[in-house]
């Protein structure tokens, strides 16, 4: 999916062309083209060693690429060092200056620019308020602040620099679950209010999905999918991404074309659906991915139903939902249904479950 499809975002704001990076002859990053739009909240997601940190270093200017170019508003910035780029980074460790007060931390980029003390203070207090911290924080020390407050201060400091692009390097990874959830929402809200380009690096696809306009998924130094969160969720490009999403049901299948439609053939023969998938016209092996909430216990009306027979093993109460775990020829199947649809069963019950063929998604091996 290209940037142009997202309304209100100017494409070609930040463009990477044929970027590679090698360390000691070893290629660690290779990107043909990447376009990030103005005001976009763009996330880069990948496990450690996927090249996401290298990509961030190149984007921010900490490192130069081995080959290729970077353009910001059509200006080639490839060899401009980090401090001369109109970009700023929120480091994973936050990198707050421990010997300065919070006010001094936030004012630092302004002080370096030689801006008058009184103007600096006003700006710092304004930024504190933007980040929902009261004026009292101005005089406080970093050691007096909680993790979430420090997080906000680090962002306020970067905003004081007034960059065109904000890089965020896993800024929430050190925080506990609840605080992370709060800050995810706050970050998204802040992005809306500041109208700046946010480039967010994380290993958590879940985190990226909550905040991002688009997500790039990286593996082995390459971007394997760039899409809106919804599309990544529903149509992951391969099994790898799917593992990343967690909790998905992955069935190994073979496909064949019959009457212009893709037919799943399995030794079980009870996955009897037709997949309306891209133009696959050969026998292929791959995986069928079905989200847990798409599987139902009842046959669906007026639909071509896909079904498999599973052996129920357990159920877990998840508040508004109930999670059922079952076995299908040694593969774990997870089903999530609303609480109202509670299904009573005995362990070991064999039942048929159904889903709409359009809810499943085929990926090639």
């Amino acid at each position, binding site marked *: 999916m290209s940037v142009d499809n997202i309304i209100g975002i100017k494409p070609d704001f930040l463009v990477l062309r044929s970027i590679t990076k090698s360390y000691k002859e070893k290629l660690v990053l290779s990107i043909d083209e990447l376009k990030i739009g103005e005001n976009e909240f763009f996330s880069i997601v990948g496990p450690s060693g996927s090249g996401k940190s290298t990509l961030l270093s190149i984007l921010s200017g900490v490192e130069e690429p081995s080959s290729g170019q970077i353009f910001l508003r059509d200006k080639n910035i490839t060899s401009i060092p980090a*401090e001369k780029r109109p970009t700023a*980074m929120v480091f994973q460790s936050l*990198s707050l*200056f*421990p*010997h300065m007060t919070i006010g001094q931390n936030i004012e*630092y980029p302004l002080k*370096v*620019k030689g801006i008058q003390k009184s103007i600096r203070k006003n700006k710092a207090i304004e930024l504190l308020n933007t980040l929902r911290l009261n004026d009292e924080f101005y005089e406080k020390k970093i050691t007096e602040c909680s993790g979430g407050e420090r997080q906000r201060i680090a962002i306020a400091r*970067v905003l004081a620099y007034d960059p065109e692009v904000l890089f965020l390097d896993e800024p929430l990874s050190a925080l506990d679950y609840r605080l992370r959830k709060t800050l995810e929402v706050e970050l998204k809200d802040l992005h809306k209010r500041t109208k700046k380009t946010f480039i967010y690096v994380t290993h958590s696809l879940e985190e990226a999905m909550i905040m991002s306009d688009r997500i790039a998924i990286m593996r082995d130094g390459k971007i394997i999918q760039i899409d809106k969160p919804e599309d990544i969720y529903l149509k992951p490009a391969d099994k790898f991404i799917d593992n990343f999403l967690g909790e998905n049901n992955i069935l190994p299948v073979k496909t064949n074309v019959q009457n212009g439609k893709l037919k799943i053939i399995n030794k079980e023969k009870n996955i009897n659906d037709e997949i309306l998938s891209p133009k696959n016209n050969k026998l292929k092996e791959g995986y069928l991915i079905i989200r847990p909430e798409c599987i139902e216990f009842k046959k669906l009306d007026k639909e071509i139903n896909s079904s498999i027979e599973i052996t129920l093993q357990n159920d877990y109460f998840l508040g508004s939902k109930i999670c059922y775990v079952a076995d299908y020829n040694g593969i774990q199947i997870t089903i999530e249904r609303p609480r109202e649809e509670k299904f009573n069963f005995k362990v070991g019950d064999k039942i048929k479950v159904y889903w709409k063929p359009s809810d499943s998604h085929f990926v090639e091996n």
Partner: protein
Amino acid sequence: MLNEKKIVSTGFLMALPNILLFLFFFLAPMLIIVGYAFTPSLTFDILSELSLENFKRILNEKYYISFIWSLILAFITTLILLFICYPVAYGLVNIFGRATNIITLLFIMPLFVTETVKIYGWSLFFLKGGILNGILDYFALPFPELMYSIPIIIIGLTYNFLPFMLFPLVLGIGLIPNELRLAARDLGATRTTVFFDIDLAIAKPGIIIGSLLTFVLALSSMSESRMLGGKKVIMIADDIEFAFGYQQNWPLGSALSIILAIVATIILLILFRWLDIKSFIKK
């Protein structure tokens, strides 16, 4: 509660051996020195008579010259050591990598040898007809007559107290995560600004402790001025040793020691005020 019956806390009991050690071996000799300082000159009965004779004598005779020389030499030594050790300490923390251990060992090794032996080594090196002279002659270069001059005293002091500056600096510089420098640079600071705003500011405790150690050590040194400087200048420690030893005038030596201790303490207090020592120890 049971604990309320205890008159003495466990913490105090645990600290008791240390307190006793401190009282007997540190505070007691100090008190004896204070006592002697107020005893009439050339007597050995401590406080047989309360007298300010020693202090009057110090003021009347030209002891202040020794004090000034000691202060000047200690100050110069500290300053030189700061400039020499900072880059080395930075290298040990950030650059040398695997070589760090070996380099550290090289800096520690001279501490295994007594100061006197090291100073003799330097004498042999700088002496007319010594090692340096021989090498320079071989290349037909002129030989600078350094022996028995003030610069050689400073060289000796600098060499001897180098580890006492280096290792506190290593600790100080070790307090600076590299990401802080990157962050400051990213926010628009130049290299120089980062050095003053981040490096020096955060390494300050290390810088102060190192300076303090070398300053106090150099202030109370005498071998360098005596053996390398050939008594070109007389340092206060030399006067003190002379009073205690050759003159057998313990009260005078004690009074001089007290003044030196007071001078050192004042400098220490000024520095500690400037530095939030607690924040350093907590880390």
